[in-house]
């Protein structure tokens, strides 16, 4: 029986080629899109699961509010792990990562390489995480100072092979020159890990004032014993704070108890986060890498599902629309003794067969577009990942789900025909009054319109970010790293390059208002003795005299640092938010206090106020910030004015190379660094655009199929109308009118939904565009025009056909 079904289904597919092609293309786009997003989602949720003890590993997060400044951090204090392990038996082990240095200079031959992927780790690293060794014993590998564990890639790069690397020394620029012995080589870390390093240096070599509960600089992971509930464990942190933190804090500020501290609107909280949640649920300060976002996983999944639905709807609409073609067969089969059940089975077999074909075409689409998608999503997914058992089952089941989804309604619809009616040709197939079909077309277009609006809003918002008034000028600024240069050389190089006519100004700029740059914050108070209520935390940046000019920042009041004033080393410049945090009405001349290393207060006089500029993401409002005069010459920023950027770049590179032979020349343009901060939004924008285009293409394919069919059915009517004097325009209007109405209804339904979704999305940005009616108007017009163009192919063809031909055939 099933053989007979497949045979007849196959012949039907071959007979109605246009119908088959439309259905298969539509479904395969839907299926392909769905598979691609499934791969993406599975990859996203697979993060950090490769650790054998993944279900017991937790990171300590810190949430602090102090003086109106809120900080959610992925790091905690250095003694925290040790304290937890010694005080609470539930903690089996802990490991700290110290990743403050983003890179080290490592010597290879006579050249220094600016090596990223470096971190200092406790020797317990391998007891908590699963990082298999290729050679060497990881149990003892990081126990001694001056040891390092490297990955296979690193071993190949510096020594040629893991076997050659073991026992050798790596020379780094720590304290000018430090040698580390390679004690073990491990396999490269999996891609789907929230941190990925190639060099794990011994923690003993970290130059740090250990034992400080108040500075948060260590990523700390704890391994809980089996059966421990981490949420219950979180309650222990209150005890830890009272026992260890309060006594330390009391040494430099007046603080009586945590209750008083909290009563003044402050907060100090620690909590454990499961390691498997980090990638999708954590976007804190000082993450080890840019994480994903569960929100986008949901949005992408929903969009993929909707596109699959749109494609299924095409199948439903086209199959039911051309049901008259199948009605006779249904009638005959029923007369020959077929039960309804058997007919339903037959039609479901057909839709499943189409879905299977669509699966193969869809997989081809996936294969063709995977590298593009990888580029957009920042992933490195492979087709071979589809061969994992779970995915294979999913792919085998998918055509049956799709076939069922698309086929079940047509199957019931077609199999319910009464044989005597259809065999006499009495059944009239109402084309105008098919409510379900109209509803489905509206659904398709409403979804497409929502996706188009989403795309436009995302792009407009990105554009807004790029062109909004940042408070600094990101264009035509080059930032060069001053590796391996003495401060004097840095100074003379800066002076020398400043003489070039293309260079307008230059500044030592260790801190930059873009992501990935250094940050430093300190607690200030308005009185010389800090209390819970007069203290607040803000950014505290060392800059030089030319910083504001080079970065194009503007003064609000007061003055910039000046070489003409001797006393500027104790002066500070606040931004507008800092003025508010301090509560100053007339800030110029006011004093703010910090405490020095011995806990003694140190006064700073406000000499000026700089206009607010965005130094964090535009998702947030500008926080408090203060400049003081200093020499942070790690990097030099040059503002230039030339059309020959590459020429200038090579001039500067040559000067650097001459001054520091063997050192890498690292530079970045400020505007590019700025754009990188919004990479995720740009990715979402690109994917949303791809979705929107796919959705509208599939919806139009369906519309095209319907129009073809209906024009075919109404050939005779069109012929008669033309004989009676209807013009081509009349006919086109008649054929398009109904569909245009549907698109308009879809627009009316989609507009509020799209408005709501995009309104919610925009709330994530402190600086955002308004959703104006133009966006919706443009989208509506686009949908209408695309639908009209699709329809007009068939409508014009039908309208200009010679009526004699169409009437003769009867």
């Amino acid at each position, binding site marked *: 029986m099933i053989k007979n079904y497949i*045979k007849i289904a196959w012949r039907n597919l071959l007979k109605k080629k246009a119908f088959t092609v439309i259905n298969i293309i539509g479904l395969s786009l839907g299926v392909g899109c769905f598979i691609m997003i499934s791969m993406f989602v599975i990859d996203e949720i697979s993060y950090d699961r490769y650790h054998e003890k993944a279900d017991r590993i937790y990171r300590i997060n810190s949430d602090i509010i102090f003086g109106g400044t809120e900080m959610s951090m992925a790091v905690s204090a250095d003694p925290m792990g040790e304290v937890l392990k010694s005080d609470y038996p539930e903690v089996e082990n802990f490991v700290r990562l110290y990743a403050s240095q983003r890179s080290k200079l490592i010597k290879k031959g006579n050249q220094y390489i600016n090596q990223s992927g470096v971190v200092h780790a406790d020797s317990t690293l391998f007891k908590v995480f699963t990082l298999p060794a290729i050679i060497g014993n990881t149990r003892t590998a990081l126990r001694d100072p001056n040891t390092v564990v490297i990955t296979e890639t690193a071993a190949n790069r510096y020594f040629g092979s893991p076997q050659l690397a073991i026992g050798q020394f790596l020379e780094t620029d720590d304290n000018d020159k430090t040698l580390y012995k390679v004690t073990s080589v491990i396999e490269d870390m999996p891609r789907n890990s929230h941190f990925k390093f190639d060099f794990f240096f011994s923690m003993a070599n970290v130059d740090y004032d250990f034992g400080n509960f108040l500075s948060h600089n260590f990523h700390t992971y704890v391994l809980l014993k089996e059966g421990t509930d981490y949420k219950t464990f979180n309650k222990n942190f209150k005890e830890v704070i009272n026992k260890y933190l309060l006594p330390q804090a009391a040494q430099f500020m007046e603080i009586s108890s945590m209750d008083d501290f909290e009563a003044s609107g402050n907060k100090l909280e620690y909590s454990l986060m499961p390691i498997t949640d980090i990638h999708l649920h954590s976007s804190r300060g000082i993450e080890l890498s840019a994480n994903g976002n569960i929100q986008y996983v949901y949005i992408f999944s929903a969009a993929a599902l909707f596109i699959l639905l749109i494609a299924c709807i095409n199948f439903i609409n086209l199959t039911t629309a051309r049901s008259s073609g199948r009605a006779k*067969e249904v009638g005959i089969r029923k007369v020959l003794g077929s039960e309804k059940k058997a007919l339903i089975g037959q039609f479901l077999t057909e839709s499943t067969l189409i879905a299977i074909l669509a699966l193969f075409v869809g997989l081809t689409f996936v294969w063709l577009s995977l590298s593009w998608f990888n580029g957009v999503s920042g992933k490195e997914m492979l087709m071979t990942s589809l061969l994992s058992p779970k995915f294979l089952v999913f792919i085998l089941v998918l055509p049956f789900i799709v076939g069922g989804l698309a086929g079940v309604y047509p199957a019931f619809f077609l199999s319910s025909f009464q044989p*005597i009616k259809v065999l006499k040709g009495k059944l009239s197939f109402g084309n105008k009054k098919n409510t379900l079909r109209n509803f489905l077309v509206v659904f398709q277009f409403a979804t497409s319109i929502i996706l188009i609006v989403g795309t436009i809003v995302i792009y407009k918002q990105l554009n807004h970010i790029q062109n909004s008034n940042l408070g600094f000028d990101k264009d035509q600024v080059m930032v060069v790293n001053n590796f391996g240069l003495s401060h004097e050389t840095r100074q003379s190089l800066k002076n020398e390059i400043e003489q070039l006519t293309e260079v307008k100004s230059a500044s030592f700029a260790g801190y930059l208002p873009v992501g990935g740059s250094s940050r430093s914050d300190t607690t200030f108070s308005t009185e010389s003795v800090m209390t819970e209520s007069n203290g607040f935390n803000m950014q505290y940046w060392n800059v030089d005299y030319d910083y504001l000019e080079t970065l194009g920042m503007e003064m609000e009041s007061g003055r910039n640092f000046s070489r003409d004033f001797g006393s500027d080393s104790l002066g500070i410049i606040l931004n507008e938010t800092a003025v508010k945090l301090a509560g100053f009405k007339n800030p110029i001349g006011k004093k703010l206090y910090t405490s020095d290393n011995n806990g003694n207060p140190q006064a700073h006089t406000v000499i000026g106020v700089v206009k607010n500029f965005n130094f964090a993401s535009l998702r947030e409002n500008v926080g408090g910030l203060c400049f003081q005069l200093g020499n942070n010459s790690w990097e030099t920023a040059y503002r230039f004015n030339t059309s020959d950027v590459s020429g200038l770049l090579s001039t500067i590179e040559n000067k650097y190379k001459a001054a520091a032979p063997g050192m890498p020349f690292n530079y970045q343009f400020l505007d590019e660094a700025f754009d990188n901060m919004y990479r995720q939004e740009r990715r979402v924008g690109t994917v949303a655009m791809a979705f929107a285009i796919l959705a509208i293409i599939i919806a139009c394919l369906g519309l095209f199929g319907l129009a073809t069919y209906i024009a075919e059915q109404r050939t005779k009517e069109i012929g008669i109308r033309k004989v009676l004097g209807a013009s081509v325009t009349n006919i086109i209007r008649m054929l398009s009118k109904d569909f245009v109405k549907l698109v308009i209804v879809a627009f009316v339904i989609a507009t509020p939904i799209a408005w709501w979704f995009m309104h919610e999305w925009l709330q994530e940005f402190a600086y955002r565009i308004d959703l104006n009616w133009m966006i919706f108007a443009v989208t509506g017009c686009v949908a209408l025009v695309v639908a009209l163009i699709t329809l007009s192919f068939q409508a014009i063809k039908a309208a200009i056909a010679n009526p004699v031909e169409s009437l003769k055939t009867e």
Partner: protein
Amino acid sequence: MVNKLLSLNEATRTVNSGSNKVTLLDNINLQVNEGEFISLMGPSGSGKSTLLNCIGMLDSFTGGGYTFLGEPVHSMKEKNRSKLYKEYIGFVFQAYHLIDELTVWENIETPLLYKSVKSSERKGLVADMLDRFNIVGKKDLFPMQLSGGQQQLVGIARALIGKPKLILADEPTGNLNSKQSTEIMELFSDLNKEGVTIIQATHSEKNASYGSRIVNLLDGKIVEE
């Protein structure tokens, strides 16, 4: 010994057309014995087709009694009724109603599929039927590639494949020329001699003359036998 195949007792069929009740068949009384060859005659709209459809259980009477092989069809459930006609009744149509996507062989085979006959047995039965109707050479052709007469031969072969007791033929030669008509009617005549009961609806006196009995219908009533 003559076995009664079916009997209609005051059988009525009405439809609602808007607010009017239209009577298509009016108190039909008819006995059909096994081995009969009955011709239903009458003008268009007299109810021939409706009567055939109701006897064939594709349609049902709205009143009166219908007994088939001693079983009361009028009080039967849809499922049993379908079992009954699948087993005992074959249909032949004016417009042949072959499935365009299936070959001659497959068209003839289809009723056997719905009766769940085994594959090896099906092959034998279909081959015998093709042989008998001399259409072995056409077994892989599609209906569109055959003449009208050939298509109707396939239609009859398909009706016979399930070894029915009763063949219902609605204007079986209506779309054929006179030579083809004669061939088909002679075939019916032969089948009847082999013991198959046949009820045909026809306009043609000549075709009716092949039958053993003529029933005249007018406005849904039997007017003459």
